[in-house]
């Protein structure tokens, strides 16, 4: 858990770029892209968080030495 807040900040930064660019690619219409971005971003962050949680749990249980 070293520098957890910094890592979280960087993750949110990277996720904004990833979701932002993919949203713009999927929606050439700027108005629609603006509308769908928040939902897509939230979905990405929550899904990534769930994956991270599973990995941490596995790290402390099945994969622990």
């Amino acid at each position, binding site marked *: 858990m070293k520098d957890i807040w910094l890592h979280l900040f*960087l993750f949110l*930064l*990277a996720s*904004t*770029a*990833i979701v*932002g*660019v*993919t949203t*713009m*690619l*999927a*929606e*050439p*219409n*700027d108005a*629609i*892209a603006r509308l769908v971005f928040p939902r897509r971003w939230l979905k990405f962050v929550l899904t990534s968080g769930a994956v991270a949680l599973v990995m941490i749990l596995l790290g402390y249980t099945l994969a622990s030495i």
Partner: protein
Amino acid sequence: MQNKDPQGDPTVATLLTWFVPGAGHLYLGRPLFALVAFLLVEGVYLLGLWLTDGRAFEILPAEMRSQFAPFLAPELGNLGAMLFQSSRFGFGTGAPSVWPDTMNLGMALTSFGGILNVLLMSRAHFDARASKAAPGLRPEAAALACWVLPGLGQILQGRRLRGILMFVMLVGLFAIGTTMGEGANLDRERHYFYWGGQFMLGVPALFAEMIHGHAPLDHEVPYHDLAVVMGCVAGLLNVLVMVDAYGWSESLRIGRDPKHGLTAEGTP
């Protein structure tokens, strides 16, 4: 606006260009364009090959060398030249020697030769489908502009906000990663494959590499991995930015509404 009488098969034109730059346009009956394209793309590649003494693949660490390792480099875009380089020079003789002073410039040129040929392939594909297109920014030119500067293609298309946002997000991601990693990501010898992804960010990545130099790592860099990942992610995301610019110009030139994107209703 679409050509009712195609000059050839777009897939054949694209594959021919992949093997020999210009061959696709020769197949499409445009010999002069084919010759100019061949000289330009192969000229850039061969200049790079000359500046590196053909040793661009030799910098790959011994444990990472395989028959297919060069296929994960930007040079892959120019398959014929890359196969020539692999067969003629390979991974070198194994004898230790100092890199040429122009090694990094040469590698940037061979990689750029690969990018140029991919754009030429896309042009061959487009020309085979729609030779009588509407005027305006050509799709491959819009994509190239995005390689020069992320978002520039969109700005040239009149989509300023989109272009500026793309630039800020990608160059910002790259700049933060590079700063935190003390520039450890800016070296192809150190991160051969990641450098290939980062190269897709275009001129900003090359400019950062040029001004930072290639200092040896003489101390522990805490955010070394972060720099490598963020630089590579920014570069790979720029491929999507290039595709976005390409798609918009392509739609305009063939007379389709460019706002009908990948997921919008009414997409043909």
